[in-house]
């Protein structure tokens, strides 16, 4: 169970590896299928975040943020399409997505989009 605590490392690749290790560890116990699934999501999120950072030329930090925060950062940085993609990938319910969008648009004072909401 303590395996995933290894995920507190500075090196991104090492983090992904240790999260995957935790996933494997959980998948060995049939009562832990939920945890295994979550670790799988976590690893996928980290990979997506690495890609997002690359796409934004490393200007925007994504790595290690939660799903909600990732969506938020995408929106704040005008990466609306990416936000939608993350939403679909992690099956973020509409309700939460709209709240995040509302907060994000308010944060960047994008009143035009807010009107269109």
């Amino acid at each position, binding site marked *: *169970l*303590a*395996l*995933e*605590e*290894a*995920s*507190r490392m500075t090196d991104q690749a090492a983090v992904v590896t240790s*999260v995957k290790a935790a996933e494997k560890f959980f998948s060995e116990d049939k*009562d832990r299928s*939920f*945890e295994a699934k*979550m*670790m799988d*999501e*976590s690893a996928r*999120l980290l990979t997506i975040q690495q890609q997002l950072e690359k796409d934004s030329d490393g200007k925007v930090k994504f790595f*290690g*943020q*939660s*799903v*909600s*925060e990732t969506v938020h950062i995408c929106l704040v940085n005008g990466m609306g399409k990416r936000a939608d993609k993350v939403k679909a990938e*992690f099956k*973020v*319910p509409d*309700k*939460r997505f709209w*709240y*995040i969008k509302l*907060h994000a648009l308010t944060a960047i004072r994008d009143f035009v989009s807010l009107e269109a909401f």
Partner: protein
Amino acid sequence: GLGRDNEQSLDIEVLKDAAKKALINALNSVNGAKTLVLDPTLAGPLGLVTEVALLKHHGVDKMFWLEPGPLTSTTTNVIYLCRPLIKYVKIIADQIKIHSKESLKHRYTLFLVPRTSTLVSRILEEEGVLGDVTVSSYNLQFIPVAEDVISLEYDNAFKELWVDGDETVIYNSALALDVLQKTYGQFPRIIGKGDYASKLATLLTRPLPEQPSVSVDPLTSPAPFDSLIILDRHVDMITPLLTQLTYEGLIDELIGIKNSHVEIPLSLLNPPSAPNPENPGASLPSTSAIITPVLNEKTKKHVLSAATDPLFAELRDLNFSSVGKRLSRVAHRLDEDYKARLQAKTVAQLRDFVGKLGGLQTEHQALKLHTGLSEMLVPRTRTNLFSKSLEIQQNLVASYETSAQISAIEDMIAQGADMQTVARLLCLASITTGGIKTRALENVKKEFLQAYGYHLLPLLLSLSAPPLSIILQNPPPVSMSPSVAVNKLPFTAIRKSLRLLIDDNPEALEELENDISYVYSGYAPISVRLVQCVAQKSGVISNPAEKVSVDTPDGKGKGSASKKLFAHPIVGWKGFEDILSTIPGQTFDIVQKAPAATASRAPSISSLLRPHEQTTTTAIFFLGGCTYTEIAALRWVGRQNRGRKFLIATTGIVSGASLMKSIANDGKRGPGKRDTTI
């Protein structure tokens, strides 16, 4: 003040003096100027017993935090003061090794709080520096944090016991309670509830190592102990999960109180520039509806203490809904007092007024502080999320539409409520319903992790795993050990038998405060009801204040003292055994034999005399922490009878948020570094 009768209570200041003296002795044991390296978690507790000037006076030249990295010391003597944690000892060893590499000569002394451990010596030996260090201990135990509350100020007790399974704190608590016995006299009876509480009681009845104790002659002690009630936090997990609604509790929830200190904007602390007798009411919350939140303003730590601030003593235990009213009453009285100046005609009257002016200004300052604090609290209690979370809590404790509450919690996640609030609500939902439906639970857990980060999975696991088991699924998985099922709290039955939920009638609630349930606006903490089962049996069954509520409008008037019933003697759980047996955790009631040396003396004699007019003290120890709200409720119970005082002792003061935080932080330390101290 506070309608408290003139019965004397135990002098707990001696504990503080003892802690101070022990610290000075520790410092003086090292001759000459010294550099003090301090464990950051000890700074708060130490601040309650001493001040920096005193340290300087005893040769402390410079102070540093105990942190990784090299240490620059200008003095030969280096004193380390820390809890016996492995990570600290490793840092110390590293610093010493760096010094010896640079061939710097220092003399090192390590004081461990509250006691030394062989593990520490072994690590120092492994690191090859044991020879360079003098290892000793500084026995910091109970610190008075209020006139009737003493605390070990140990933040992690709950997490260590119920998440890590580290029982060191039980042993340390036993030592500390033993010092209390040696100081004020033996606990004739130890009553309690909970598995860890029971372990503690067993330890206490065994011979413990000799410790330096404060010598107060138990014979002269004004209110000897009649019993010790030990409750462990797991017996009542619901209470800390609820949002505290008393003034002090709410400050802790929304602003945060650490080691009796609260961080508040500097402007609230400056003395009033000029007393403005024309218009002191202008600062009342009711008249200033629009409050610009004070952000980025410099803050300062302020000690909240009833001893120096009588207004705070008046306010701290009130339900927040009545604080505004009380403040305005004080403001009006102050206004009147200032106006007296205008009526002062003769020189004598003027002189009289000037004499009172100092007191008035202090009062004015206190009023400003608490009005300001209330103004900080009010907007936060008006937010949508705050009221939503209260609503969910109230529905859950009333078992009203429980499955709808889960989706309400999901809504809160969507709206960006903070992590601790949501985690608390989830636990509460699970405890009060006996487990959350598997599908719903997985959904909400997924939402939780997506919103706050996958790194919180260990938190969820800790909360679901025994011995904590406060997030459970229903039906339980087949593999679940039957012991967990046994540990389930039959909440609805207890709610009835202990009368936890009082139909709230808002008008009655404000003025009467006729039951401890006022602290949560209609819900009575299980923990305090259990204390009442021992110390105020009638209070469990009906509202004791209803009978005396006629005498004064605010329920704590001068006349009520004479009508108060004399406290009944301690007879254990009698009358409530059946209810107790339905609550998980061991129930115990141990009668201690007086030690042979003093057997024939005071305790037995006073216990013979006891039924008449001898005031006694019931000590209540919370293993794993207690909340300000529980303290408020216990004070309320204490006021209902004559002849019994409560002394509240705890490992620390907690709130639901601080518990969640301490468990969530678990993962941040990295693998294999479980800090055990045995």
